[in-house]
């Protein structure tokens, strides 16, 4: 188990390899379909949000608001990442992202961007919304809540020991590509 604390450095990220189990601690920002589309189309990050040397987490959490206006995260697992494939590489490059957390893996363009810019893809356990919500120690802020709605907003979360697995590293390796190729070959034998 490798402990990773934010903010990251390129060196620390390049030291990771496919199959490493990690636990992430620090401030992360969520962003999914609406945010990726917005950034891809040239949108600016709002003041207070920086992805540089940080994480974008593909997640649409369940949030409950207390009477004093503060938020409690009651469910927060990763969403399917492949939908962000058309935009992810550009966002990694333009915003200096060091790690993407999601589920299901990503494709060749993200793989290439990870290699070129020093970024990794961290795979969370899909559906494990309660285990992962327990890792969210504080909801620090929310951005674009009105514009994008709660699941699609940018949530600023303080996480502690968030478990994930490196499935795309910064050296051009992808567990998803390996497993797909191996399972395809196996199926060809069994069909």
């Amino acid at each position, binding site marked *: 188990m490798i402990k990773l604390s934010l903010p990251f450095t390129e060196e620390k990220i390049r030291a990771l390899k496919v199959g490493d189990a990690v636990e992430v601690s620090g401030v992360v920002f969520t962003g999914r379909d609406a945010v990726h589309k917005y950034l891809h189309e040239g949108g600016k990050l709002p003041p207070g949000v920086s992805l540089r040397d940080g994480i974008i987490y593909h997640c649409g959490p369940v949030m409950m608001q207390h009477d004093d206006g503060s938020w409690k995260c009651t469910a927060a697992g990763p969403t399917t990442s492949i939908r962000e494939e058309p935009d992810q590489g550009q966002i990694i490059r333009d915003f200096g992202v060091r790690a993407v957390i999601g589920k299901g893996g990503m494709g060749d363009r993200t793989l290439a961007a990870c290699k070129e810019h020093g970024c990794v893809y961290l795979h969370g356990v899909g559906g494990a919304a309660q285990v992962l919500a327990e890792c969210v120690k504080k909801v620090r802020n929310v951005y674009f809540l009105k514009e994008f709605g709660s699941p699609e907003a940018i949530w600023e979360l303080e996480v502690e020991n968030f478990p994930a697995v490196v499935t795309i590293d910064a050296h051009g390796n992808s567990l998803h590509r390996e497993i797909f190729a191996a399972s395809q070959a196996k199926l060809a034998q069994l*069909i």
Partner: protein
Amino acid sequence: MTMLHDSLVELIRRTSAEIPDDVLQSILAALEAEKKGTIAEAAMKIIEKNIELAKRKSQPICQDTGSVIFYVDCPVGFDQITFHETAREAVKDATKKGFLRQNSVDSLTGKNDGTNLGPGAPTVHFHQHRTEDVQVRLMLKGGGCENVGAQYSLPIEKLHANRDLDGCRKVILDAVLQAQGKGCGPGVLGVCIGGDRATGYEFSKQQLLRLIPDRNPVPELDKLEQDIFKTANELGIGPMGFGGKTTLLGVKICAANRVPASFFVSVSYMCWAFRRQGVSLSPAGKIEKWLY
């Protein structure tokens, strides 16, 4: 608020927070089967812990509380309009209580009004029967697994899939291959052979109402279910697509008639966070029995 309303809110709460026992048993068996010390085993351990935590805290197992789909078996003369209206109110209130995420988006404007109500949300399927009881089943179908569903129109030359059971086998296994871990495996397949494009998908989803360990009464389909289950679990895709022994927890297949020109095979994928429950209701709408 009526008793029916309160019963439906409770049905939604329990469906969202508690996995049915048949699914839990198959997940525990999958955890046991994974090789110790692998990332597949670590993922299954997190899944097991998550199930326990969601139940204890009465909070959603998965943050994607999915499409809300009711299946209602009711007697002749049952007031479907009142039921539908009550179900809508129950969904709205369950959302306020955090049992459901604000999960319904206007497809034209992209707006999410936070109520989980709109055209097709929730969906209610009614089915009349000749007995007096009312049974309500609920499925919360997450988007990740819904997105890896597939519909094949046979023949498909590229997959060497002809218009026969072997062709069906080939395309169903192709769906498993294409899904990899993206649908939050290990998952369960619901399949319909035949029908049209709409009924094929509809019936494939209804197969997911069956219990995991049950067996298909139709010998050909039973054989196909067992075959797909065994073969898929030899592919090494594993939990979350991390590699490993369990790719599927179950396979459920039905057949519907088709027109001579069409031969569809429709595959619905359900994630491990398999949220389905059901209740028998008294005439006043009180929960008398849980169905899963």
